[in-house]
């Protein structure tokens, strides 16, 4: 019943968003039909588009997962961006200079990237524990530090002089992540992390404590939960997921090197995905794929029509707004209807 209702809500909200966006496309004197057809064809229309969408969404799955787990535990980790960048940079640099057997090297670099992300988040955990600094502020500020420190490292010490934009050298070819029927292994790793996270939250006692902390921190504290350690653990764990996302982008993406702007908007898209998914781990997978589809389709849309790919950002924003609006709208509408029928029964 609840699942049916929420799927229905989502469908209505997304359709509504596409309708609103269509008006704006009309204003630009383009045909919404053409635009959406291009979006679909390049996002899902063929095996090639479909696998491209999957490959575009694995970083989103991981940053989205990171945000979802943090928020559902009442830990406001907003540092996905910085953790992601550090994971990417360290994996990229180590991938150039370290010499290891192929498959081992790939795995090592992925884990290393995750650990670096975890370490970056651990700073926030340390500040929180030692100085009671709110992780909301510290993770946010650490993003700026990460942004410019990684950019500096890629521009000066590890610069590839032959590159057009500041970037590191390409990692060793043997560390490239293989694809399986055109789907990069990074995607499977990301999906596996979704399952692992679900297992952690729902099957371990730490996961239980984390979820209860998300519901009501005082309740968890008084109930004897180890809230300090749980909070640090969640910060570090979600930092790991973001960092892993960054490392996988280097290993399984298309650039295989760290370059200026590679982090794009993955961190903030992750936060947005978590909000759309209401911090549910399983829904995060779905919404990450959906956003991945939009982003991938946008490239084609730009090809075929005069609508720029940035338009998809606009569309995303409308979708988030209608989705959040539809949820509370549906809830109050159904409450109001029930109240009215109750009153009518009373009047008889």
């Amino acid at each position, binding site marked *: 019943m609840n699942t049916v209702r929420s799927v229905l809500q989502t469908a209505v909200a997304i359709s509504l968003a596409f309708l609103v966006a269509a008006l704006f496309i009309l204003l630009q004197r383009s045909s919404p039909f053409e635009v959406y057809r291009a979006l679909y064809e390049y996002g899902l229309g063929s095996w090639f588009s479909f696998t491209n969408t999957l490959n575009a969404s694995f970083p989103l799955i991981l940053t989205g997962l990171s945000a979802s787990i943090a928020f559902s535990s009442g830990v406001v980790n907003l540092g996905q961006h910085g953790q992601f960048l550090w994971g990417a940079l360290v994996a990229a640099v180590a991938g150039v200079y370290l010499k290891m057997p192929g498959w081992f090297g790939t795995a090592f670099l992925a884990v290393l990237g995750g650990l670096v992300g975890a370490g970056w988040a651990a700073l926030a955990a340390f500040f929180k524990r030692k100085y009671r600094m709110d992780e909301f502020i510290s993770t946010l500020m650490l993003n700026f530090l990460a942004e410019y420190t990684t950019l500096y490292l890629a521009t000066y010490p590890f610069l590839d002089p032959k590159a057009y934009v500041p970037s590191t050298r390409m990692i060793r070819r043997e560390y490239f992540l293989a694809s399986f029927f055109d789907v990069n292994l990074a995607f499977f790793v990301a999906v596996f992390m979704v399952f692992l996270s679900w297992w952690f939250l729902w099957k371990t*006692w730490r996961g*239980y404590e984390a979820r209860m902390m998300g519901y009501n921190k005082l309740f968890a504290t008084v109930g004897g939960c180890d809230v300090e350690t749980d909070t640090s653990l969640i910060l570090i764990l979600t930092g790991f997921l973001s960092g892993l996302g960054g490392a996988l982008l280097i290993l399984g993406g298309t650039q295989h090197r760290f370059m200026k702007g590679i982090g794009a908007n993955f961190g903030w898209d992750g936060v947005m995905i978590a909000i759309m998914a209401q911090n549910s781990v399983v829904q995060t997978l779905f919404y990450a794929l959906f956003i991945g589809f939009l982003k991938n389709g946008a490239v084609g849309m730009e090809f075929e029509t005069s609508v720029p790919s940035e338009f998809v950002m606009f569309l995303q924003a409308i979708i988030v707004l209608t989705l959040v609006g539809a949820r509370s709208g549906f809830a109050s509408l159904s*409450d109001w209807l*029930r109240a009215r029928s*109750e009153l009518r029964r009373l009047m008889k």
Partner: protein
Amino acid sequence: MIDICKVYPPNVVALKHVDFSLVRGEVHALVGENGAGKSTLMKILSGMVRPSHGEIRVNGRRVQISNPVVAARLGIGMVHQELALVGSLKAYENVVLGSEPSRFGFLKPELSLQIVKGLAEKFGLKVDVAETTQELSIAGRQKIEILKQLYRNVDILILDEPTASLTPQETEELFEEIANLKRQGKTIVFVAHKLDEVLKISDRITVLRKGEKIATFENDGTITAAQLAEMMVGRKVELVSTKTFRERSHPVLVMNELSLFSKTGGKKLLDEISIVVHAGEIVGIAGVEGNGQKELIEVLIGLRKATSGRIEISGKDVTDASVRERRSLLAYVPQDRKNVGLALKATVLENLIMTHHMGPPLKKKWLLDNSSAKNLAARLIEGFNIVCRNSFERVQNLSGGNQQKVIIAREISLNRDLIVLDQPTRGLDVASTRYVRDQILALRNAGKAVLLISSDLDELMDLSDRLYVIRSGRIVAELDPRTVDKTVVGYHMLGVSA
């Protein structure tokens, strides 16, 4: 008020076709259990809540009371249970706040003071209006709220459970003042659940039960408290749990000269408190609210560290232990069900296994054993008669009484030697109250040490084997409730000699 109905979305029916009338210059008591609709009815009258159906007439004229300002213009004012005053202002400033006497836009503080003083004298309210508000007692602050309404010239004054946190002496004083107000032509609605008080001061009584009006009648001395209770609940009730004498044994909780200073260091929130609770006894803590009970519990549970002193539970020194470590030695029923005792959006099962999850059989190394959790939840739901659809229902959908049962079930089944209960029956209906009290007595008879904090003096007198009185963070008396009278406890609570 004619044919008033109120449905709170989505489907909570609070009032069903209720008629209610007030006669000028009467004291009208409105009684009923928690959830009977008393507050909703009065909130509708005072413009805080809009009715779903029905009409209201004031002096024969039909009115729409859409907000409290409209109500005030019609001469209707309400004093809520939670007092809403600015603590740092002088009392008289709170009275005039919002409609201060002024000249050319400048405040006239002397004039305010003079007017408020005159008002207090006229209506015989004994309170120092020049004092800073937070320095006043609860009873004092309540009078300021009443003055605030009188200053706005109300004719109908609604008092929502005004005696809930007053001592017997303060209650007595309030009643005299109510009689005074009545003599000066004010109409008073007295919302209450203490029946002897209702019978004492009201001219007419209206009984609500589950959103319906049961009756309105003259209080002419022919009705008894027992009859009134029966009307409220719908069947005969035995209010008092019976208690047998028990020999007390070894000490379980020992608090030794515990002190707590406020963060800035100046104020002593707890002042050398020493308390002992033995196995097989219920020790009550009486006191006017805000005299250190909250801090005492926080220090005992481990949410705050004491400045000095020592706490021992079951022979273990826990002075520096974490909440988690202490929770393996004590069970705790917090006062604030919704914000501390439960996670409302979590399921019944998730709420029931809290604290149990710290040890076997639920905790298995890294994992939380799902089948043990389900077993525990099923056992508790059945054993404590928790009414819910299943253990995966959200706790917020349960009634208040059943929510409290979830907490009580969880804490009792922890089987700790020490149980701390903070206002365990506050806001519960008669049947649930009775149930909780019986559980508390059963714990004691099973040899547990019980520490009971309550602002309900009757409850403390009925249940405790020993009674400490706390005032200004200090234990001022240790009494035997079997030999001492309620008024004596009241004197200790207030700090005046008998």
